[in-house]
């Protein structure tokens, strides 16, 4: 009886020691793989963002996220009735494209409307072309847009405001999503957080790294 319980205690201690060793080893390898001086990732929900949608582009063509595979994609959700944040961010993306020079061929800025009732393909064509010739504008049915926003974890709302045109305003996040050529999520940015030059430089180094490894 005494022997058995002692054996159990010994087993428990060894078990505990084994777990401790594994934990320390794990932590050691984790640190080796992830040096602490690297900045903490801004977004931890990477796996949650899915680059998936089925929409209509500004030329009237039906497109999916796969239509832009092979290029880095800068995805921004907004609407053409938005007087400040949207043109500011789209002008910023245009500036990023211009700064990239020849590398801009590897990048496509995509503006997805959250107000498809008013932002038809024709409206989107007129709008995006004013910012940059390579910019793509996407619209669709309410359901298609809702699905796209949901996949990007973009939350938007329609708020009734009698003073606003047609009686409503849209609230939306100002995030710019950078998606990799294989469609996976790379990073998320806000226009005011860094200059267009800095973002262009960052994307440029990503393109160079990709070319070296590929």
């Amino acid at each position, binding site marked *: 009886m005494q022997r058995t319980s002692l054996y159990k205690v010994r087993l428990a201690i060894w078990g505990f020691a084994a777990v401790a060793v594994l934990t320390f080893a794990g932590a050691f390898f984790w640190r080796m793989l992830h040096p602490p001086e690297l900045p903490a990732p801004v977004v931890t929900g990477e796996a949650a963002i899915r680059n998936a949608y089925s929409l209509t582009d500004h030329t009237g063509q039906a497109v999916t996220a796969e239509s832009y595979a092979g290029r880095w994609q800068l995805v921004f959700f907004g609407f*053409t*009735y938005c*007087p*400040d*944040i949207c*043109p*500011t*961010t789209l*002008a*910023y993306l*245009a*500036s990023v494209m211009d700064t990239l020079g020849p590398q801009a061929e590897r990048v496509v800025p995509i503006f997805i409307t959250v107000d498809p009732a008013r932002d038809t393909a024709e*409206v989107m064509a*007129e*709008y995006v072309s*004013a*910012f940059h010739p390579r910019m793509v504008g996407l619209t669709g049915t309410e359901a298609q847009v809702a699905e796209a926003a949901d996949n990007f974890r973009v*939350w*938007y*709302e329609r*708020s009734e*405001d009698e*003073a*606003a*045109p047609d009686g409503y*305003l849209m*609230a*939306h*996040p*100002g*995030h710019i999503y950078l998606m990799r050529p294989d469609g996976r999520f790379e990073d998320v940015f*806000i*226009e*005011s957080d860094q200059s267009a030059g800095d973002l262009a430089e960052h994307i440029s180094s990503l393109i160079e790294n990709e070319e070296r490894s590929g």
Partner: protein
Amino acid sequence: MKHFLGAAFIAALPTLSIAEVTVTSPWARATIIANRPGAGYLSLTSDTGDRLLSVSSPVAGMVMIHAVETDGNGVSRMVHLDALDLPEGETVTLAPGDMHLMLMQLTQKLEEGTSFPLTLTFETAGEIAVEVRVLGIVATGPESAE
């Protein structure tokens, strides 16, 4: 009565300068599509403290003072301000991505290179008329014109 009070005020405080607001670099971004609202930007400095009560322009049916509030989830909402406080000696700047004048029911598209009149009404300084330059769609500030 109003003039009498003003005179009494100045007489009582002879060293205080008359309330004045300096309006710097008013500009608006060109609009692309008709019937879409535009945004105007400027800087305001009041040496005595004042409040911007209303804004009007012959090119817009209505001008609203908007601030942008961003919540913890990064969702931005435009907030309509009834008045904009101008603390004494402090420059309040309206700039892209932040506070702006929302120009609604535009009678025309705002074309780059043109300008339009804007009247600002202050609580103390009264009405100040300025001419707003329309800059290009990719302009980020008043210096973009140079």
